[in-house]
C-alpha cells in the first residue's frame, strides 16, 4: 500500500512539475506577462495651451508641464525580433499639449545612468513616439506598429548631445562592412550633419525603418537625478499629415518606446507600449472656449501638400556613355514570411540573370546555394544580384535574414536547365538496376547449368 502511494505521489509530482514548467513557458512565451491586464485602452489628453517652447533646457521642466497631469504608460519587452530582451523600463510618464501651431510631447522615465556616448558594446539611451500613418490601427502595437505603417519620432541621447552641445564623436565617418569573410570589402560612409536631435522616420513593418523625407520634429532631453525627461516639438501646419491633431481623420493614437543603453538596449531590444489613444483639445475659436475631442473630427479645409516619395528607388538611368552591354534577364522576386514569389525560377545555362527582390513585410535575405550569392531587401529597399547561370542543376535559394520562426524553411528553387546532374543520377540508377537484373538472371542461368550438368 505504501509502495502504491509512493508511486502515485511520484506520478503526480512528475505531472505537476511538467505542468508548472509548461504553464510558465506558455505565459512567458512572448516575454514576462504584462504587470497588469490592460483591458481599457489608455487615453492621453492633449490640452490646448497658448504657450510656445523653444526647447531651452529649462523648458523641460517648464510651468506648462506642471499643470498637465502625466499619464503613466506601462511598457513591455519586445520579443518578436532579436536581440532578445534583457531588462525592462517598466513605464514612461507622458504629457502633451498643443498651441494650434505646434504639438509638444514630454516623456519621462527612470534611468540609473545617462548613456550618451556610443562606443563598442556601449549603447545610448533613446526614446521614440510612433503614430499610425493609416486609419484603423491594429490593437497591439507589439513592435510599435508591427502590423501597421507608422511615423516615428526617434530621439537619441548622443544625437541630442551632438546637436545641442556640439559633442561630435571622434570618428565622423564609418566603414560599412557587409561581408564578414571579405576583409577588403568596405565602403566609407560619411555621417550626415544633424538637423535635429530627433529623427523623423517611417516604417511599414519591422525591418523597414527609413529616414523620413522631411525632418520636422525636434527634441531636447535632460537627465537629472536618475530620470530622463525629453520634450518633443513638431509643427502641425507644414509638411505631411504625420500628426494632424486638429482636425482628425480616423482614430489617433501613439505608442512609446524607451531604450536603456546601460541594459544594452538597441535596435529591436527595447521597452515599448501598446497604443495609447490621443484625445486632443481643439484650439478655441476667437472669443470661444477650447473643446475636447475624443479622437474624431472633420476634414480640414486646408489640404497640406503630401510629400512625394517612392518606397522603391526608380530604375537607374542608363549611362549614355557606357557601351551597349548584354541586358540581364531581370526576374522580380517578392519575399514574404515565409515564401518567395515566384517560388520556382527556371533559366537556361549561360543566361545573364538579375534577381531583384522586394520584401512585402520584414527584412528578408536571399542566399543562392551553389552560386553562393547573397542579397537582402526590406520594404523600403530592393535587393539585387546579377550573375551568369553557368552551373546547371537545381539550386535552392533560402532566406539569410532571420525573419521569424519559420525562417530556415523559407526556400525557393532555381532551375538552370539542362539539369544534367539529375539526368546523370537517373541514368546511373537505371544502369545499376539493369546491372542487378542482368546479374540475377546470369547467375541463375549459371547455377541452373551447373545443376543440370551435375
Amino acid at each position, binding site marked *: 500500500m505504501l*509502495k502504491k502511494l509512493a*508511486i502515485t505521489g511520484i*506520478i503526480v509530482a512528475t*505531472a505537476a512539475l511538467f505542468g508548472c514548467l509548461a504553464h510558465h513557458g506558455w505565459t512567458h512565451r512572448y516575454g514576462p506577462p504584462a504587470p497588469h491586464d490592460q483591458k481599457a485602452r489608455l487615453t492621453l489628453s492633449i490640452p490646448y495651451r497658448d504657450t510656445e517652447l523653444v526647447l531651452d533646457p529649462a523648458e523641460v521642466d517648464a510651468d506648462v508641464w506642471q499643470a498637465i497631469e502625466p499619464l503613466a504608460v506601462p511598457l513591455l519587452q519586445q520579443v518578436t525580433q*532579436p536581440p532578445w530582451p*534583457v531588462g525592462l523600463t517598466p513605464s514612461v510618464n507622458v504629457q502633451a499639449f498643443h498651441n494650434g501651431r505646434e504639438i509638444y510631447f514630454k516623456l519621462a522615465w527612470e534611468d540609473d545612468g545617462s548613456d550618451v556616448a556610443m562606443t563598442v558594446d556601449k549603447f545610448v539611451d533613446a526614446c521614440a513616439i510612433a503614430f499610425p500613418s493609416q486609419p484603423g490601427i491594429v490593437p497591439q502595437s507589439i513592435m510599435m506598429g508591427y502590423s501597421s505603417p507608422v511615423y516615428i519620432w526617434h530621439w537619441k541621447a548622443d544625437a541630442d548631445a551632438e546637436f545641442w552641445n556640439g559633442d561630435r564623436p571622434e570618428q565622423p565617418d564609418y566603414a560599412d562592412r557587409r561581408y564578414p569573410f571579405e576583409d577588403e570589402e568596405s565602403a566609407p560612409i560619411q555621417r550626415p550633419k544633424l538637423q535635429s536631435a530627433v529623427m523623423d522616420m517611417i516604417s511599414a513593418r519591422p525591418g523597414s525603418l527609413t529616414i523620413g523625407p522631411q525632418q520636422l520634429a525636434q527634441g531636447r532631453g535632460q537627465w537629472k537625478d536618475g530620470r530622463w525627461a525629453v520634450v518633443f516639438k513638431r509643427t502641425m501646419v507644414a509638411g505631411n499629415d504625420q500628426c494632424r491633431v486638429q482636425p482628425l481623420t480616423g482614430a489617433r493614437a501613439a505608442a512609446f518606446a524607451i531604450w536603456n543603453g546601460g541594459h544594452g538596449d538597441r535596435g529591436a531590444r527595447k521597452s515599448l507600449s501598446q497604443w495609447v489613444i490621443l484625445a486632443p483639445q481643439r484650439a478655441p475659436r476667437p472669443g470661444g472656449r477650447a473643446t475636447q475631442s475624443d479622437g474624431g473630427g472633420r476634414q480640414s479645409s486646408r489640404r497640406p501638400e503630401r510629400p512625394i516619395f517612392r518606397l522603391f528607388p526608380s530604375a537607374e538611368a542608363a549611362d549614355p556613355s557606357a557601351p551597349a552591354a548584354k541586358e540581364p534577364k531581370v526576374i522580380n522576386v517578392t519575399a514574404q514570411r515565409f515564401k518567395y514569389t515566384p517560388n520556382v525560377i527556371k533559366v537556361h545555362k549561360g543566361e545573364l540573370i538579375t534577381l531583384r527582390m522586394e520584401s512585402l513585410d520584414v527584412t528578408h535575405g536571399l542566399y543562392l546555394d551553389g552560386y*553562393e550569392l547573397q542579397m537582402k531587401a526590406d520594404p523600403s529597399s530592393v535587393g539585387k544580384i546579377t550573375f551568369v547561370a553557368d552551373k546547371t*542543376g537545381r539550386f535552392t535559394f533560402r532566406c539569410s535574414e532571420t525573419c*521569424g520562426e519559420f525562417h530556415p524553411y523559407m526556400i525557393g528553387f532555381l532551375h538552370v536547365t539542362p539539369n544534367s546532374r539529375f539526368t546523370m543520377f537517373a541514368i546511373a540508377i537505371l544502369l545499376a538496376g539493369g546491372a542487378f537484373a542482368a546479374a540475377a538472371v546470369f547467375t541463375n542461368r549459371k547455377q541452373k547449368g551447373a545443376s543440370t550438368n551435375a
Partner: protein
Amino acid sequence: MPDQTAVSNKFLGIIPMDGRLELTALPGVRWLFKKRWFPMAAILFNMFMFMVILLSGVVGGFSSGNYIFGIMIVWILWWVMLMMVLVPVFSRTWCMVCPLPSFGEWLQRLRVFGVNNKLFGLNVKWPERLRNMWLCNFLFLATTFCSGFFTVKPLATFLLLGGIIAIGIVLSMIFEKRSFCLYVCPVSGFQGLYSNLAMTEIRRKNPAICEKHKNKTCETGNKNGYGCPWLCKPHSLNRNTYCGMCLECFKTCPFDNMAFNLRFPGTDILVNSKRGLDEAWKGFIMMGIAIMFYVAMMGPWGGLKDWVRASTLGGWLTFVSLHASMNLLVIPGVFLVFAWLSKLASGAKDVPLRQVYVNLSYSLVPMGLAAWIAFSFGFLLPNGSYIIHVLSDPFAWGWNLFGTANFPWTPVLTRLLVPLQFITLFGGFVFAADYGFKLALQTYGDRRTAVRGFMPLLAMLMLVTILFGRLYGG
C-alpha cells in the same frame, strides 16, 4: 518451404558479410564496458545538455528557434548525428546514453549508481498485444503532425522532450524495466528498425557457454549488474532491433561471453526473426515522413508551410490528413501492389502474399535511411553554423560564453549539397537492391522463382530512388 540457406552471404556477390571484428577483444574496451561508470558518465553529460535544452525551451517561448540552444542542438545536431552516424554505424548507441528515460530508471532502481535488482515500481508486464512497434509508429507519426511547432518554437520542443521524460517516469513506475523505451518512445521505433543496417552489434561469443549456463544472469541480473533492462535474451540475441546497447550483459555475464562486434552493414535485415507488419509499417512511415518533410519544409511551396505551421486550423488539418493518409495508406498500398506483382511474377503459389509483403518491405530499410541521410545534408550544410552561435548564447540573453555569439550564419559547401544527396541515394539503392534480392531468395527459396519475384521489387526500388532524386535535386 523456402530454402533459407539459398541466401548468399556476400554483398553484391563479392564482399563477404559473415565476418565480425570483435572490438571488445581490444585492450581496454572490455574493461571499459564492464565498468558501472560507463556509460553512466555519458548519460550524466547528456542529462546536463538536455537540462539546458529544456531550460532554453521554457525561456525561449515563441522566439525564433534559430537563436535558441534547444532547437538547434536537438533538430540540427542531435537529429542529424542520429541519422548520419549514430544509427547507421553504432546501432542503438544513442539509447545507451539517452538521458530521457534515466529519471524513470533511477526511480525504478532507487539509485543512480550501484546495483539494486529489486526494482521499485509496480513492474507490470507490458500488454502482449502492444509488444511491437505499432504504438511507436503512431506516436512518431503523431509527433510529425506537429513538426511545424516542435522544430521551430522553443517552447514546443520543451513540451515534446519534457513530455517524453514525464511519460517515461510515469511508465517506469508502472511497467517493468525499459518498457517505455521499447514500446512507446517515438524515437525508439526507427532506431530499432534502422539499427538492422548498423555496422555494430552485441552478440554472445560462444553459444555452448550460454547453453551450459543455467542461471542466465544476463537476463536475471547479479551483484555486478541488472538483468537486461530491454527485456532481451542477450544469450540468444540475433537482431539489433530491440537491443538498447546498455552494456549490462557485459557486466552480468560471469564468463565474459558477450562481444561488441564490428560487422558488415545490414546483416540483420536478413535475419528472419520476429518480422512483422509493425516493422514493415515503420519502414513505410519513415519513407513517407522523409517525403512529406522535404516537400513541406525544404520545398518552395509556401502554402504547404502555412499548413504545417498551422496558420489556419483547416490548413493544418489538411496537412495532417494528407500526411497520415500517405504514410498509413498510400505508401503501404503502393508497396502492396509491387508485392503482389512480385508474387505474380514469381509464380510461387505456396508463398503467402503477407509473407512476401513483410519480407520484401525490409528492402526499404537501406533506402529509407539513405533518404534521411540525404535529407540531413540539406539541414546541416546550410544551417549548421547556427550551432556555433547558440553554444555561446544558449538562451538568447546576450551571453557570449565562448566568444562565438556573433558568429554569422554561414552556409557551408552548398554547391556540393545536391551531389552529396545523389551519391547517398545511389548508395542506398545499391544496398536496397542487393538486400532486396537476398530477401526475395529467402522468401521464395527457389532461385529461379526469386529472380522473377525480384524484378518488380527492383523496378519499385529504382522508381523510389529516382523519385527521391527528383525531390532532392531534380
